């Protein structure tokens, strides 16, 4: 794949039109007015039938799972997993991400955490009943989801220093702890809360369990949005749990016997979000580059357009190199998806590391190229620059990506 197909271009143009008509007029409000992005996302989903598609896809998957479970109960071989029927083309998620990120990477963050991370956490380990109860409305954005692992004292070392706990109490569990930097935390309807099972054993040996919580449960407090550097269109908050009582029906998988103590489940989720970050980076880079080229042609200093200066040309050239590389990573990911091949953890981490750094570098250079205007919000690159920074921090910091790539290489 070296270019988008006609079909993908049709999709891109349609989404672009929608964004120009629906997002751009309320962009200021989303960035600076604490207007949450969910209604816009719901409109996007309804307009393009993404909600109906998600519901249909979910129904098919759950029916296949039920058939397999029933066969197993009868002692028969479960029916062979159907070959991917052409499957869902990853470009159908990548293209909206790229296009939205030209204006508002925050909206993508809110969307990705809700329908991506949160839904995936329940889908990958939950029971059939749990999936039916929570997943469809997350996939359609009818419900807002949050996925909570980070705590004030545990970030990169998410499991090692995790303090949140679940204690057994009869048939129930009692949950305690606080989480921070939680995307959608302030507005979430459905929250995946990750904690350690406290059986009086040393913290390092405790099992990692995940529970699904609903907004408004007694003992659950969701903070207001935190003030932050960028991604203002993505509400980020804290969660406080004091003696939240839940039944086993809210324990994901309804079992404490999770493989490798529960530490692997969350890691699957990590590698999923890393590829999405590359698409986000591509949107930021493409927009910064387009704006920069225009500006370099039109801004005149010393009697000529600044694009005539070699120092400005170097900036544009470097931006184009990054754009091509990140686009190629995205194209590769799409082709792999179409072929039903997944990324290794090292590949996903490498993709995220490179794309995040590229987006940051391009956005910073765009601000520089715009001079004083670059520092003013009217010219848009300053927002993309503030937003880009977090790509190097969330979904695993750059340093953690490097560690994962190297570990994977050295393990071979």
């Amino acid at each position, binding site marked *: 794949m070296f270019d988008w197909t006609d079909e993908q271009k049709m999709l891109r143009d349609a989404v672009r039109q929608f964004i120009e008509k629906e997002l751009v007029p309320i962009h200021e409000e989303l960035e600076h007015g604490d207007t949450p992005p969910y209604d816009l996302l719901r409109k996007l989903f309804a307009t393009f*039938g993404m909600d109906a598609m998600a519901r249909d896809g979910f129904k098919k998957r759950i029916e296949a799972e039920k058939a397999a479970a029933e066969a197993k109960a009868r002692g028969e071989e479960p029916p062979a997993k159907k070959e991917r029927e052409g499957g869902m083309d990853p470009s159908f998620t990548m293209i909206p991400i790229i296009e939205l990120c030209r204006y508002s990477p925050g909206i993508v963050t809110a969307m990705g955490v809700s329908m991506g991370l949160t839904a995936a956490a329940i889908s990958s380990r939950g029971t059939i009943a749990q999936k039916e109860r929570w997943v469809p409305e997350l996939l359609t954005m009818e419900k807002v989801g949050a996925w909570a692992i980070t705590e004030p004292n545990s970030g990169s070392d998410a499991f090692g220093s995790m303090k949140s706990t679940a204690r057994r109490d009869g048939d129930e569990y009692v949950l305690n702890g606080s989480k921070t930097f939680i995307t959608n935390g302030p507005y979430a309807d459905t929250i995946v809360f990750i904690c350690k099972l406290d059986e009086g054993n040393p913290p390092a040996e405790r099992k990692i369990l995940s529970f699904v919580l609903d907004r408004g449960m007694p003992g659950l407090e969701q903070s207001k949005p935190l003030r932050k550097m960028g991604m203002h269109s993505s509400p980020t908050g804290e969660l406080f749990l004091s003696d939240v009582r839940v039944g086993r029906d809210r324990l994901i998988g309804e079992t404490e016997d999770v493989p490798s103590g529960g530490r692997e489940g969350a890691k699957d989720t990590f590698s999923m979000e890393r590829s999405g970050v590359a698409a986000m980076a591509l949107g930021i880079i493409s927009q910064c580059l387009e704006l920069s080229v225009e500006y370099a042609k039109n801004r005149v200093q010393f009697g000529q357009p600044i694009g005539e200066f070699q120092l400005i040309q170097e900036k544009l050239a470097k931006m184009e190199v990054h754009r091509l590389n990140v686009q190629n990573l995205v194209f590769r990911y799409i082709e792999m998806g179409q072929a039903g091949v997944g990324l290794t953890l090292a590949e996903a981490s490498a993709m995220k590391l490179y794309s995040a750094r590229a987006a940051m570098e391009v956005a910073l250079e765009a601000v520089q190229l715009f001079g004083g205007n670059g520092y003013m919000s009217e010219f848009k690159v300053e927002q993309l620059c503030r937003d880009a920074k977090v790509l190097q921090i969330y979904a695993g910091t750059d340093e953690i990506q490097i560690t994962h790539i190297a570990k994977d290489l050295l393990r071979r």
Partner: protein
Amino acid sequence: MNIVVCVKQIPDPAEPGALDPNTKTLKRDGKLILDESDSYGVEMALQLADAAGGGEVTLVSMAPNSETSGLRTALAMGAAKSVLVSDPALSGTDALGTAKILAAAIKRVEGADLILTATESSDGYTGTVPEQIAELLGLPSITFAKSIAIDGGTVKVQRQTEAGYDECEAPLPAVVSVTAGVVEPRYPSFKGIMAAKSKPVDEVDCAALGIDPGSVGWAGGGQEIVTVEAAPAREAGEVVEDDGTGFEKIVAFLDNLKVI
């Protein structure tokens, strides 16, 4: 309720257009897109079919080089199928020739209850094709529809006028031209985009339509483009200092134009 919508595929107005120096017509060899003014007819047709509780929307288009890009957009919006007339002999076809071709193509669509068109294309602007089609098909025609309703075997149209609108009716089948901007064309859904690729496009040439190539194209056209000139730059106006008699100069100026 089966509806035919005539749609034109035109060079993207966002790209700088160019004239072919030999034929002095717009170059159409690149990728063509759905004329925006036709997207209203497509939307109207889809809404009418929905309201009728079923039926198909079929597109009819004439375009060079077997072009389907614009058709795919309308198919992605929800049209079921399409007839495409493409034939090198059609190069240079004028408005009447276009109407002959489209009328013949519409006849290939079985059971059409209603034929919708735009009022005019965004690259040609003759605005005559809809009535010519109606005449050739021997069907009643209503122009400038701002709203359309079907009532049994009758189409009821609010026909836009300068002062407001007229209420008109015609028995079906009929040809109705739709004013731009009267409905909000839907975005193609993702599913629609995926499905559009495999929707049928019945491509035909003049022979298949039983049309003599000599009666269309440059040969059949009643027109010849002799020369194309750049529009003259607007001349600077006359500046009159008002020394108290300015009004007399205005009166004299208007009198000279014979407007008073």
